């Protein structure tokens, strides 16, 4: 945490991208203030209005204001992806830590499952899981967690294996420290920076996958203003109302760019050994 604060002061690229991330989050929080209209209010006689001064991003088939929906979409899409990253991070890291620290049979089972997951194209399994369980944001998060946790588990496991042999951990074991205490106090703090960097760098990619599931209809359901879902709805009106497709997609694109830049810079701050 101290390194991050120091990084904000010394690394200008990191400071700048952090501001951009905060702006995105602020947009999500302040959506009700920023939005000119109610994102779910349908006014049929306003259907399919092209972008104008009154409706900057145009309106959709139900006459809903597209700008308001994109702004509210920041809430749905960002909270969705943050939920996803947190779940993947917690599941993956704890599996990896348990696997690395306790070893033996537990390790074998977890690693075999993880071997199985990486020898398989993840997106198709995610589509199958989300699709079979039925489309909802929670099921989409669940599906992507199932296919994404292994990367974190492997990383955490390899780091735990290294740290386990260090003197301070062995000293703690010799002194009769309980496993949970050792994990919490000695091991976790040492692996967290790298794990956080990985998670931060993954936000963009996970966002695209989550939006992809919504786009296919296996994620958020109407009338939720979620970007992937809006693209799905806009796709059907490509000829008559292309603005319905352009703006939500642009929103995803910009958000992914911002998070990818931020992730890269965070890595520079927390892990200065690696350079481009």
């Amino acid at each position, binding site marked *: 945490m101290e390194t991050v604060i120091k990084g904000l002061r010394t690394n200008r690229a990191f400071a700048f991208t952090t501001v951009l991330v905060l702006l995105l989050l602020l947009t999500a929080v302040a959506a009700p203030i920023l939005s000119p209209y109610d994102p779910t209010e349908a006014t049929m006689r306003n259907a399919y209005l092209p972008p104008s001064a009154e409706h900057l991003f145009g309106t959709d088939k139900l006459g809903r204001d597209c700008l308001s929906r994109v702004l509210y979409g920041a809430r749905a899409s960002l909270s969705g992806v943050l939920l996803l990253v947190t779940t993947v991070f917690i599941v993956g890291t704890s599996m990896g830590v348990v696997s690395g620290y306790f070893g033996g049979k537990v390790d074998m089972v977890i690693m075999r*499952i993880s*071997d*199985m997951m990486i*020898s*398989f*194209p*993840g*997106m*198709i*399994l995610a*589509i*199958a*899981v989300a*699709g*079979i*369980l*039925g489309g909802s944001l929670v099921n989409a998060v669940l599906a992507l967690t199932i296919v994404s946790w292994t990367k974190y588990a492997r990383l955490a496991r390899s780091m735990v294996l290294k740290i386990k042999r260090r003197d301070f951990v062995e000293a703690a074991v010799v002194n009769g420290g309980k496993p949970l205490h050792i994990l919490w106090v000695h091991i976790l703090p040492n692996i967290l920076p790298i794990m956080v960097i990985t998670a931060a760098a993954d936000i*963009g990619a996970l966002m*695209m996958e989550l*939006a*992809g599931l919504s*786009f*296919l*209809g*296996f994620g958020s359901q109407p009338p939720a203003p979620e970007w992937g879902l809006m*693209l799905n709805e*806009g*796709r059907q009106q*490509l*000829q008559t109302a*292309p603005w319905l*497709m*352009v703006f939500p*997609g*642009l929103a*995803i*694109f910009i958000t*992914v*760019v911002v998070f*990818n*830049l931020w992730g890269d810079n965070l890595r520079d701050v927390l892990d200065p050994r690696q350079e481009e």
Partner: protein
Amino acid sequence: MANKQMMARIGQIALVLLGISFITFALVMLAPGDVVRQMIAGNEDIMVSQAEIDALRAELGLDKPFIFQYLDWLGRALQGNLGFSYMAKKPVIEELLGRLPATIYLSLASLLFMIVVSIPLGIYSAVKRGSVFDYVVRGLTFLGVSVPGFWLGLMLLWILGLKLDLFPIVGGTVSLETIILPATTLGIAMASKYTRQVRTAVLEELHQDYVVGARARGMSEKHILWKEVLPNAMLPLITLMGLSLGNLLGGAAVIEMVFGWPGLGRLAIEAITYRDFQLVQGVVIWIALMYMIINLVVDISYNYLDPRLRKVR
């Protein structure tokens, strides 16, 4: 690759397939709604008599305990019978084979795009590190990895297909005209990733001692680059290429949907939407199998290409 290792790999593939098929099977059982009813009616709201449902349930063996159902399915699958697709009205295996060519064409076309674009760009920006060209390439590839493929596809479809009228916008058929847009969409994302990897690989080799040595001995930069650096740098990239081919065969589902491309990914999505579970099961296994075979082939060829590995074994 030694025979023993080969056998181990093949055994592993079999195990993974077993695991994957079990997971999808269990998922189908967990799925909300009556599978049998959906098989008959699809997603439509047709009245189906209970007798009809029970008859089909017994016929499919779906009234037995879960584990027996799975073993039944497995036994039939091992004989090449993956069941019957209610959506396509033909055996699952026939439908899978029918969709295979489209997916292979699209994968190869995207791979071609990727190679043609990324190898020259990656090499040149590594050699000219820090130049304007390098910065532009890095900027563009950054955007390329950050753009959601399905949106990029829609934008291309809208601008090149509708506005400029250069390409057909109605999908469903496989032809040279219809393959360009989906292959470009997939190719842009892959080329962006790959260009960066080529650049990194070449840069890494350029810093090796043997390059310094070759320079000291007065060899031309051209010779060093083409004869020394590139062969070494390209080796690890082959693995990555194999992985992307595997991902393409399975992971292009979203793009296939956007362009109405009649490949396996779209088949998977259609099957799921239609709740045609025998087909879902079949597609997932099929894609997993192809993915793993490609990885195996890549590993084998890698062994032949890298003399260091050959000697050890």
